[in-house]
């Protein structure tokens, strides 16, 4: 029996979390979502004209997915906490993907603000999934505050640069007592597979699907990559060696 992803007591069949940003239409988003098999889907909270281009919630409901609101775009703990409270009221969920970023150019998390926001939201009963740097100490601190998972980045949001520091990620995975969800930086299927092979419990995929030339096809590639990577992790890879190790018998060779 294969172990399933479990976050805060909720069991997931899929290890892919679907980010909804960047799709050109809700139709394409919905088709891609179904192709990934994801069961949890992110949304953002904004001051926008309502129902512009249809309702994203209807598309998510139709796919039977849970909603994971985020605090994207927040630069301070106070803004993130406020946005989380608004999301809880709007969507009736305690789950929050906590993002507190440090600047516009890198969109990298601001560690001190992130810790402050996480502590407050955990106190208020939220199920907090923080987007964090690939820093094993920060990840541990977030876990100790009561976060339900940690979401280290592979590389900056939307960069498609893959996993820049697999060694740090391996340390985070090894020491984590909560699920590790690779968030941000995935560019193509092999990046998602690498994350899973490193032992991440799940990956969040957004731009790499939504901004692909063919998002629906990339969605399928991502689903297969996550499954392949997880299987390879469970199967246990062979060690990397400097020199060859023959796979054919070394005895009984022909003589001339």
């Amino acid at each position: 029996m294969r172990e399933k992803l479990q976050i805060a007591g909720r069991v997931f069949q899929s290890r892919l979390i679907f980010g909804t940003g960047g799709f050109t239409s809700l139709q394409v988003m919905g088709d891609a979502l179904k192709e990934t098999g994801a069961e949890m889907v992110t949304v953002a909270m904004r001051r926008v004209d309502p129902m512009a281009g249809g309702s994203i919630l209807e598309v998510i409901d139709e796919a039977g997915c849970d909603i994971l609101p985020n605090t994207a775009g927040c630069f301070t703990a106070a803004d993130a906490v406020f946005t989380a409270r608004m999301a809880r009221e709007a969507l009736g969920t305690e789950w929050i993907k906590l993002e507190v970023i440090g600047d516009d150019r890198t969109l990298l998390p601001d560690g001190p603000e992130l810790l402050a926001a996480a502590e407050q939201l955990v106190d208020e009963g939220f199920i907090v999934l923080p987007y964090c740097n690939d820093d094993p100490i920060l990840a541990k601190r977030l876990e100790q505050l009561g976060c339900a998972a940690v979401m280290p980045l592979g590389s900056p949001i939307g960069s498609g640069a893959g996993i820049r520091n697999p060694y740090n990620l391996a340390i985070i995975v090894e020491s984590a007592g909560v699920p590790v969800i690779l968030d941000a930086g995935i560019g193509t299927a092999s990046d998602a597979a690498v994350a899973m092979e490193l032992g991440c419990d799940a990956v969040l995929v957004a731009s790499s699907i939504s901004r692909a030339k063919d998002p629906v096809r990339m969605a399928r590639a991502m689903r297969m990559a996550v499954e392949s990577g997880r299987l390879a992790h469970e199967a246990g890879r062979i060690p990397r060696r400097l020199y060859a190790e023959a796979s054919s018998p070394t005895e009984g060779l022909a003589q001339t």
Partner: protein
Amino acid sequence: MMLNLNGQVRRVPQDSSIPDLLAILGFEGGRGVAVAVDGEVIPRSIWDGFDVTDGMRVEVLRAVQGG
């Protein structure tokens, strides 16, 4: 009365309720919408009876694509 509605100072009819303000902004007020007044989230269950007064800062957010 004058309100700050989603960052813009606007004149709205006296005694406007939160549902009235949502209508002014074009929001239908269904699922996926949240309202805060002066930084405090106002639960949907008390939108109708909430007393909006001159000078208040009203924030309305909606779930959109992102993340």
